[in-house]
């Protein structure tokens, strides 16, 4: 797996983490290139379905990050998001989806260094646990006649 370069998609809010990542840039903090940032107005805007869609499109890891509690630009979006992630995390875990691949964090606009660390840590971690194909491959289970593995009971 030494040449495995994971694909990490980050869902971040505009006011804290996006700005934090900007600060990492202006501070010239170097971190792994595997990250792709998608900008949202607020963590409250981040639809849980997007995380599944990211896995479907082959993301090996996901970072969801926004303002620290009490710091939300819109006063409460991150609190709502936090509840959403608590529910979502529990559900995914119950379904056996590899939640090690989703990292939730609070990174403020002042935490450029934290952002850099976080990305590196996540990339290292995902490199260790390998590519995530399990979820995207679901798209092939259940296709075709019974003889080709319909009702793909693992027998």
């Amino acid at each position: 797996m030494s040449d495995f370069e994971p694909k990490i998609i980050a869902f971040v809010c505009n006011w804290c983490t996006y700005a934090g990542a900007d600060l990492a840039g202006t501070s010239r903090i170097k971190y792994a290139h595997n990250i792709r940032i998608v900008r949202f107005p607020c963590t409250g805007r981040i639809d849980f379905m997007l995380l599944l869609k990211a896995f479907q499109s082959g993301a090996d890891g996901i970072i969801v990050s926004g303002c620290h509690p009490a710091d939300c630009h819109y006063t409460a979006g991150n609190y709502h998001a936090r509840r959403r992630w608590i529910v979502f995390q529990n559900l995914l875990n119950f379904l056996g989806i590899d939640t090690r691949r989703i990292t939730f964090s609070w990174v403020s606009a002042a935490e450029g260094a934290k952002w850099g660390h976080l990305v590196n840590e996540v990339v290292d971690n995902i490199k260790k646990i390998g590519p995530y194909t399990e979820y995207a491959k679901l798209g092939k289970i259940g296709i075709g006649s019974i003889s080709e593995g319909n009702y793909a009971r693992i027998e």
Partner: protein
Amino acid sequence: MSRIGVFVCHCGENIGATVDCAEVAKMAKDFPGVAFSIDYKYMCSDPGQTLIKEAIKEHNLTGVVVAACSPRMHEPTFRKVAAEAGLNPYLCEMANLREHCSWVHYKDKSTTLKAAELVRMLVEKVKLNTPLYPIKVPVTKTALVIGGGIAGIQTALDIANSGHKVIMVEKSPSIGGHMSQLSETFPTLDCSQCILTPRMVEVAQHPNITLYTYAELESLDGFIGNFKATIKLKAKSVDHSVCNGCGECSAKCPIKKIPDEFNAGLGTRPAIYVPFPQAVPNKPVIDRDNCTYFRKNGKCGLCEKICPTKAIDFSQKDEFITVDVGAVVVTTGFDIKGTDFFPEYGYGKYKDIITGLQFERLASASGPTLGEIRRPSDGKIPQNIVFISCAGSRDPAKGIDYCSKICCMYLAKHAMLYKHKVHSGKASVFYMDIRAGGKTYEEFVRRAIEEDEVNYVRGRVSRIYEKDGKLIVKGVDTLLNSYPVEIEADMVVLGTAGIANPESESLAQKLHISYDQYHFFAEAHPKLRPVETNTAGIMLAGACQFPKDIPDSVSQASGAASKVSALFSQNELTRDPLIAFVNKNTCVGCFMCQSVCPYLAIEKEKIKAKDGSVIREVAKINPGLCQGCGTCVALCRSKSIDINGYSHKQVYAEVMSLFNERSLEYV
């Protein structure tokens, strides 16, 4: 079919040194929907901007991706460029190649590939961008000022003087607030009423100001520029249009022993009263809770009989009026802890332990002692007086955590006033720290210590008890080896903590504004938006936000007034269109979105049949209030709410554009 233009900026060496910009531009050409792609040294430079403008026109572009620095830096610049070329500015997006790519990665093929992918992501997004237009909201150019203390007075005058209408609501019978109760003011020791009363009169006479005293806000609906306020005018029982303010009624009222609010409980007043001689309006009201006529079913009625103008009207009822206003300024002031709050100072059982506000009344020429410092218990002039600062403040254990900010200064003033009036007397001040930050404040305190020989003791008072007619003040002097100190005082003045008004919570709920843990109203941003609340169009001034002194209150009031004036300077309010909107067809009206909206921007809208009957209710976003956080968007189960600029389609396309070529083997 989209025709997207991609403009890759080198930012000199900033991007170009790490990312192969030409290669990115070349790759971008092959992205579906890209009609034009080019790289250039400095896109934000004049030639760069011209390049974009010409490309938009020449290639008839339907969208633009500028791959350069952070959108937080130059998005407005490039959107303006797009607009100048005739493209809707919201059809321009930026890919962040500098802060999120070239500056944080090393020069490598993977860095260039990432840059290309960031461009692809924004190309996919911009294809789904729609032209957006700034939202215009009409503005009612009348301000509502709640509270007629110095902050409210200043706000009202400033707004009125800039030519706009003001409606002022004051719950007590007169405006003036706490400042009218003060004797002299620090750091100049000029008479409080002398500087205040002209302004009170100005408020009453200003053609742009409508004053409602003895009135309260009942409810507030609407949004910035378009509020509807319902004001409750409490029954005064006196027809002010007839009353000439002769004062006969007050003089003859048989009920005399009502503790006088204006004198902080140190004096008494009748049931029909004018709060103080300089009150505005200077006409009485009947305090129905204490009036015999109202308490005993029409017995008494003396005032009615003697009133020369027949102004007494017992039949008056509370009245409600509704006014349209465009902005609201909350200036409801503060309250203080009473002496009964302090266990170690006897739970208020010693008459000669008083609050700072009570001392103000004792020192005031218009006060119950006509300005002589006499102790309440026996009217003697105290020869030894002790002031205790931080009474309740800075006391996480049993008081409040914060510093009330004004006490150091007014206690120094009190000590000076005392020394000026009782030359032989001895004044001591117990303090934790002297916080005299402010223009000539420190000098003022030094004057108290040095010229007026006030004895400042650094330490707290652990207990006060009464012994042989003296108050024994037990404290500690932490500068003298922490030795215990005992002072036999004749009177003690507590610099009691400034706290939020008891009604602040219910008022905040009426206004839909937030408040902090101490129930002071919360400003929108502690540093950058200190006079606004989170609810657009509602401002704060004075001590309702936090205890503050007169100069601070007045400057905040002027700040709030200027915010209001700025708002009123336009006929329409222009707002960024990046807000949410509802698909009425699919909304099922569960209104869960309402409770997540921090701005109360979601309303219920009735869908009606042709005959006017209500078919169903759906959510509706008020564009005047929505700030575009999108929490409702992610919450809505049927995806009936979407948001401009971060629409479902757009973010979906962004995520899907980041597909992994390795693992996505559909075949």
